[in-house]
């Protein structure tokens, strides 16, 4: 009678196991030097269960790519899978081909009910769908040169002094040579990801400074720029590091 019951349970389990898969996973102990042998076996078993869940329940692949000015800022790919995974019998452990390999084989299944329950669960929201996170990353890149920058520059002629540059997000830029009491507007001629070139047009103190020079700003970091000024022959006449003012 007991044998009939066991055989009955066995067949019933097989009928309910609507989706079953065989999975074999190999991991190498060397990669888990800080773990005990039992812990490594547990990791191998977990990986086998994960692989089975992916096959039984399918996967939701979530990805997001953020680009600014043709360059990738962020690329995230996530795979989400899960549901109840049942194991038939005991996992079988063995040695693999290479030294330290642990091989685990399982026969996993999910019942009809498990599959139905999984369908009812909605995938978790992994991304900020409002797009604020991505927009912030783009804004950081676009912010690149925009803002107020100040610093100390050295001139080839021997002098030195403080300067301040303000660049608005609409592309308007001004420059002030405080120590020379002159300044004016910077007209953007060319803008790349890390370098922006301007033509200087003095609006005050033209008798103290030379007008029509070229100014280049090179991005060193989010808070530092390299300032370079060139004369009409393209020779560098002054240089210095500018810092972003909050």
């Amino acid at each position, binding site marked *: 009678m007991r044998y009939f019951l066991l055989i009955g349970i066995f067949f019933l389990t097989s009928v309910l196991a609507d989706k079953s898969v065989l999975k074999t996973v190999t991991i190498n102990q060397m990669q888990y030097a800080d773990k005990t042998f039992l812990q490594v076996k547990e990791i191998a078993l977990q990986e086998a269960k994960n692989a089975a869940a992916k096959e039984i329940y399918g*996967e939701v*692949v979530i990805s997001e*790519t953020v*680009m600014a*000015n043709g360059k990738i800022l962020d690329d995230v790919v996530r795979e989400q899978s899960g549901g109840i995974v049942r194991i038939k019998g005991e996992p079988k452990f063995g040695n693999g081909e290479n030294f330290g390999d642990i091989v685990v084989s399982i026969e996993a299944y999910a019942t009809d009910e498990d599959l139905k329950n999984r369908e009812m669960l909605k995938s978790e929201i992994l991304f900020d769908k409002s797009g604020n996170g991505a927009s912030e990353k783009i804004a950081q890149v676009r912010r690149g040169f925009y803002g107020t920058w100040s610093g100390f520059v050295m001139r080839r002629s021997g002098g030195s002094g403080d300067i301040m540059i303000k660049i608005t997000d609409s592309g308007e830029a001004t420059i002030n040579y405080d120590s020379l009491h002159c300044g004016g507007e910077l*007209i953007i001629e060319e803008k790349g990801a890390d370098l922006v070139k301007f*033509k200087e047009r003095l609006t005050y103190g033209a008798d103290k400074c030379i007008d029509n020079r070229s100014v280049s700003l090179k991005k060193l970091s989010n808070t530092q720029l390299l300032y370079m000024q060139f004369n009409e022959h393209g020779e560098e006449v002054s240089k210095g590091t500018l810092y972003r003012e909050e």
Partner: protein
Amino acid sequence: MYRAILVIFVYFFTGCTSPKEPNISQAEELPSWVNNPPELHAVGSSGVNFQGIYTQHLEAINKAKGDLAHNIKSYITSEFEMESKSTKKSSSTKVYDKVNAFSELFLNESYQVDAYIDSKKRLYVLMGSSKERISNLLGIKAQNSSNIALTALKTEPFLKEILMQSRCYSKDILKGIDTESRLYQNKPVWFFRPNYNGVVGSVGIAEKEEGVTFLKQKSAAFALAKSALAKRVQSQIASEHEALKITYNDTSGKIFESSLIIRSEMRLDGVVQRDLWLDPKSCELYIWAVKK
């Protein structure tokens, strides 16, 4: 006498200089779609990227997708501002001309049709979408779909001997990498045409990281291939182009800025690995995943 010595002197020194390189600035022949993409297609390109071919490929694909989205539907705004000042001494005119183009849509079934790598290693990717899908998107009646005719590629067989000389992995692991497809421009043909032979396919490329096993690299490449397949089926694209022209008297400059966000969330079933290839030099692993 002096003249003769000078001639000999010049002769010897001329001999010392390197011979002039022949002028071989012949324009490289690129596939016709690079400059003239067919209707409902867009081309994206990207130069060599120090982060590897995956990033270069992704950049090119996404640029093309962004352009495709703009070609389908975009919202344009423009601003024009002129400011004139005149004093007794001088007068000045400042002009701001700004154009913004926004595009935000769900693009279904956008796929890589072809790709090409030029002599400077710049990668060009041709992306397309079906007429039916775009007609649906625009709410207009679908017209007959047209498939573009691609030229045959001059492929070469995959040579296992070259892979076996690689130092990427041990000989035992390399032995197990059997690339079935032929190669074009030293890469598997499916890198250029992931849908060839009528499959719905995509490519994932993972670089070899220090201390990471071949299985992990393979799993990363497969995950990236699946992600590419999900993006192919449906992706949400938000793209913005901004062109600003500033003129101040006789000086003018231009700024062009662009941003793009591509998102995808897709349940994928029945995706299998059809082929794989390990770049023997860079150790990047390419996986071709197809939908069953």
